[in-house]
């Protein structure tokens, strides 16, 4: 979306209102925070997204201390059991408990997502801030490079990496992380440019601050909310990519359980135990849906101007 053109179309009075609102937020930080939570709890997609995301996070944390059965012990004698009191969702072809696999799978999913988004955030935001601060050929170079990275979707770079370095979690994290960088570069640079054009940056410069200090003290805090929203959505994309890569055998390797891998195993047994293919996919969909709703909700809550658009 061309956010810059949209911003320029806003009438001055709304910009002024925006400025006043920011001021008010600064003056009474705690009041603003409680206001945020009051609005948040009334926001339907935010609440639903938060509940779903917490569910997945809770599953991952729970798996660290407790799973109904071990997710690693193979017990072929009790393979492909239907759901029962002992195995709530049954067992897979190696006799592993599905609930335990799903819980531990949540952990791998979140881990890959966090690291990949971390890579994207640190490189992407850094490069985006540099592009906005330095302008000129530096900006041109960074933007061309990020345009160009779009030509390599995560699956494609994972394939290249897997071809030389072998498949594995590191391969998939690296590939997904690299794929995340250009999006963060674009978002950061776009919103940072808008901040650089504001009067308070001019004032800061008049006060003798250099571009590095302005970036850290003025630009970054002001684009933080946009970055949080973007990171939430990128997290969802990372989960989808991780699932696809594990499904293809390029990501998380057995015996480490992962949702994508479970789907791959289940596909060979579609006629025998179709439900095995349903649970892991549903888990992925819940995680992604939760994060997407959370991101949408956060965007509405952190930037009320955009709320009207939807």
């Amino acid at each position, binding site marked *: *979306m*061309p956010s810059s053109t949209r911003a320029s179309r806003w009438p001055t009075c709304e910009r002024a209102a925006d400025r006043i609102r920011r001021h008010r937020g600064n003056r009474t930080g705690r009041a603003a925070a409680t206001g945020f939570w009051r609005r948040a709890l009334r926001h339907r997609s935010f609440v639903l997204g938060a509940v779903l995301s917490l569910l997945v996070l809770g599953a991952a944390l729970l798996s660290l201390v407790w799973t109904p059965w071990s997710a690693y012990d193979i017990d072929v004698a009790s393979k492909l059991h239907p759901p029962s009191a002992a195995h709530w969702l049954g067992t897979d072809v190696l006799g592993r408990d599905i609930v335990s696999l799903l819980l531990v799978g949540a952990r791998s999913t979140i881990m890959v997502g966090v690291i990949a988004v971390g890579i994207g955030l640190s490189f992407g935001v850094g490069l985006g801030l540099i592009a906005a601060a330095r302008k000129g050929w530096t900006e041109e170079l960074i933007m*061309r490079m990020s*345009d*160009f990275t*779009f*030509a*390599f*979707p*995560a*699956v*494609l770079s994972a*394939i*290249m*990496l*897997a*071809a*030389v*370095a072998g498949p594995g979690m590191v391969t998939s994290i690296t590939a997904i992380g690299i794929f995340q960088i250009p999006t963060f570069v674009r978002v950061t640079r776009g919103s940072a440019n808008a901040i650089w054009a504001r009067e308070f940056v001019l004032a800061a410069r008049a006060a003798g601050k250099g571009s590095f200090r302005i970036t850290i003290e003025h630009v970054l805090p002001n684009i933080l909310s946009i970055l949080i929203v973007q990171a939430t959505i990128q997290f*969802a994309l990372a989960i*989808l990519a991780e*699932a*696809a890569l594990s*499904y*293809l055998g390029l990501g998380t390797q057995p015996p480490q359980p992962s949702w*994508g891998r479970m*789907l791959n195993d*289940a*596909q060979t047994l*579609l*006629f025998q135990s*179709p439900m095995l*293919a*349903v649970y*892991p*996919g549903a888990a*992925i*969909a*819940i995680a*992604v*849906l939760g994060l*997407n*709703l959370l991101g949408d909700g956060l965007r509405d809550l952190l930037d009320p101007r955009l709320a009207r*658009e*939807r």
Partner: protein
Amino acid sequence: MSVFFLRRILTLVATLVAASLIIFLVLDALPGNAAQMLMGADASPDAVRALTVKLGLDQPLAVRYLLWLKGMAVGDLGNSYVYGTPVAGLIAERLVLTIPLAIMSMLITVVLALAAGIYTAANHNKLGDVGVMSLTQVGIALPNFWFAILLILLFSVKLQLLSAGGFAGWDDGIWPGIRSLLLPSISLAVVQAAILARVTRSAVLEVLREDFVRTARAKGLGKREVLWRHVLRNAMIPVMTVMGLQFANLLAGTIVIENVFYLPGLGRLIFQSIANRDLIVVRNCVMLLAAMVVIVNFVVDVLYAFIDPRIKVANL
């Protein structure tokens, strides 16, 4: 006019060269030697050296890169390390499947997305809008390969209408082929369509707020007419941008989906080649996919200029 195109074409060429360089460096310069990989860790050094010379891997990196570029220009991509047959032929065999798959998916995507997007925008905030938008929210969250498996469960396992995988080929007419690509293309399209529908909806809504829409209504045009004649054309720009970007996802998606349905397309070829350590095939396949993405986005860029001549001026 010509300056606009010249700039775009130069960017296109530069991007393609950069992409080829990266692919070459990652696949050919990183650790290990293709010959060693092919023969395994315990091959005798003499045999490895002989194979290295035979494959032309003893030449300097720069020479090999330039030879590859030259080969691409004249259509000679070298021979597969494993099959010994020309890589170009191997790829061409697979494209017969992958290109129709991509086109079918894109068609289904566009039809679904435009229908849903225009419908929801025209019924803004009504029940239908909210319902369809919730559906798209779920659609975006579905992993396409899982949706594919669900489709197999429904149509192949339960209803037994379509086969769970494999490709019938184009020899017995067009229908058997299309039939076997039906589930794969639907599973690719539904997720993309969900995203595109949301983009279409917000683009149409944005244009509906413009002054010229009010003017058109004021001069007596009907709602429907305004929508089709004035709004859509103006709303197409963001929609097309996203379509271009989605094409990259679509190609990446075909790699995954071909594996779900055991389709002998480009994606399967890449996977077999990785398993066989046939790096020359991997290299050319990845280059082809990357080039397709870059070229499609180039075409989208140029198409903008036709839809909205203002862009040409702005980008000079």
